[in-house]
């Protein structure tokens, strides 16, 4: 079983569009949406939820007003400024560390578990899917990503799947790190813009840091061909190839509006054809073991 993560550094480069098409093209895969704070893949794959589980990723300090003597020690020791002047805990600021609970002389503070999201196991017409939704504004998305990946792995083992295809979130912080550790290949979807190149370079560094073999595809390559060439050279200089150049085509947005992966909605379009090439290149690289 091989694990592939689609990531990008910069947001909005086309990760989900490409992942959804891979779900269509891969015959025997489990799909995992690891963009848990803004998941979009379900809008293309339309999962039927089989199982829902609460995600208890963090704790929250609760102050017993009757016992509190308002001494202010918790305010002083909290490094997250989570206790207000009138001794209310700001749930957005509290990281559930428990310092206030151990230092409170009146033992007025306890840590409670909070449900900060849901994880789902679902069935789609393209195969099983593991996904989640972090409650808006919650922290610990990295832990929820880990849960989504665990669920995907269990599903994949049970189903004897060949692949786990993971849709990552933008950035390079904790949820992205949780999405890429230990996978067989990381596909970075880059766009040929100055920002895109900058963010691609950091995403490549991230994969190298965690010893994940990188590969790159350029989305909307014809928006700026000069920058596309820069990306190709950058990849070659770093010892890996570009797996494809997907052209800009309004039919990609049209597919999204119609709630379908582009490889299903317009399989003959130039964009879908190129995504298919990217997929087959990744397949053969995985078989060779070079990615």
């Amino acid at each position: 079983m091989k694990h592939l993560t689609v990531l990008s550094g910069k947001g909005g480069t086309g990760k989900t569009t490409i992942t959804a098409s891979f779900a269509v093209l891969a015959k025997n895969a489990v799909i995992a949406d690891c963009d848990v704070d803004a998941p979009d893949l379900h809008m293309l794959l339309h999962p039927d939820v089989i199982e829902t589980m609460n995600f208890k990723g963090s704790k929250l300090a609760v102050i017993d007003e009757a016992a509190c003597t308002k001494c202010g020690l918790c305010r002083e020791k909290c490094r997250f400024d989570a206790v207000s002047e009138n001794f209310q805990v700001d749930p957005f600021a509290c990281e559930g560390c428990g310092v206030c609970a151990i230092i409170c002389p009146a033992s007025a503070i306890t840590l409670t578990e909070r449900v900060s999201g849901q994880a789902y196991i679902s069935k789609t017409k393209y195969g099983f899917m593991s996904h989640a939704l972090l409650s808006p504004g919650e922290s610990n998305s990295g832990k929820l990503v880990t849960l989504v990946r665990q669920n995907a792995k269990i599903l994949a083992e049970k189903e004897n799947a060949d692949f786990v295809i993971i849709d990552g979130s933008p950035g390079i912080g904790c949820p992205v790190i949780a999405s890429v550790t230990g996978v067989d290949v990381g596909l970075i979807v880059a766009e040929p813009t100055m920002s895109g190149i900058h963010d691609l370079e950091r995403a490549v560094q991230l994969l190298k840091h965690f010893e994940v073999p990188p590969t790159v595809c350029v989305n909307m390559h014809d928006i700026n061909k000069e920058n596309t060439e820069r990306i190709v050279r950058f990849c070659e200089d770093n010892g890996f190839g570009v797996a494809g150049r997907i052209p800009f085509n309004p039919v990609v947005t049209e597919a999204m509006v119609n709630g379908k992966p582009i490889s299903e909605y317009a399989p003959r379009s130039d964009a879908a054809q190129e995504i298919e090439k990217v997929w087959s290149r990744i397949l053969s690289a995985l078989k060779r073991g070079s990615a």
Partner: protein
Amino acid sequence: MIISIASGKGGTGKTSVAVNLALSIRDVQLLDCDVEEPNAHLLMTPKISQEKPVYVSIPRINEELCNYCGKCAKFCEYNALFVSAEKVLVFPELCHSCGGCTIICPEHAIAEEKHQIGTVRMGVAGNVHLVFGELEVGEPMPVPIIREVKRQIDKSKNVILDSPPGTSCPVIETVRGSDFCLLVTEPTPFGLHDLNIAAQVLEGMKIPSGVVVNRAGIGDRKVYEYCRERRIPILLEIPFQRRIAELYSRGIPFSLEMPEWKEKFQSLFDEIERYVK
């Protein structure tokens, strides 16, 4: 006045809006809080005048005092400490720097040391004061850098905060304390879905918001229906134009080449000012 620019979905044009807005108004300070992938400085090319490392505190164990009781590891909610029969392991990337282990240790064997996770840079580009942070690759926690970026806020100026995408902790840290939040979206199902999550976050935080529809003309009309139903004002529409996309791809803020947009961003600012007052 502090205006934050957020979106939910990535790549909708937050930085583009933030930069063009900053270039269109006076007396402005722009803070790039997307410290995982900062881009504003690529469009502004500032002259850097100051650079500041950002540290977090992580535990340092004095093995001479430690008796391996394991209380620190038991206390740590983030599993950043592991205690075996004769060794304590610290995992800096898991540590949230709460300081709890130093308090709980009965042997006073834990002190704290500095661990660099990123850098904050300050500079000037034209009339704009720019502050941006950068997380070191491999470090998982952007929030302490965002805090350091926000410590540079000069309230006497018009402050613009460029937020990272998403709706989780780095976004909360960025928008906290703003007078107004501009949500940049695109008129597609993904744009709408993530706009809705972001709008809920702002509502929960009681921050007034308005929407900028970027790439207007692509996708469908559902974002407009949503904003009407939820009574979220649409303050600006930026059409999908190849010229704007191409300028962006070359790292050029489009209002510099298309000066009619400066007026539009100026009136966007005026309108936000009216909302806040």
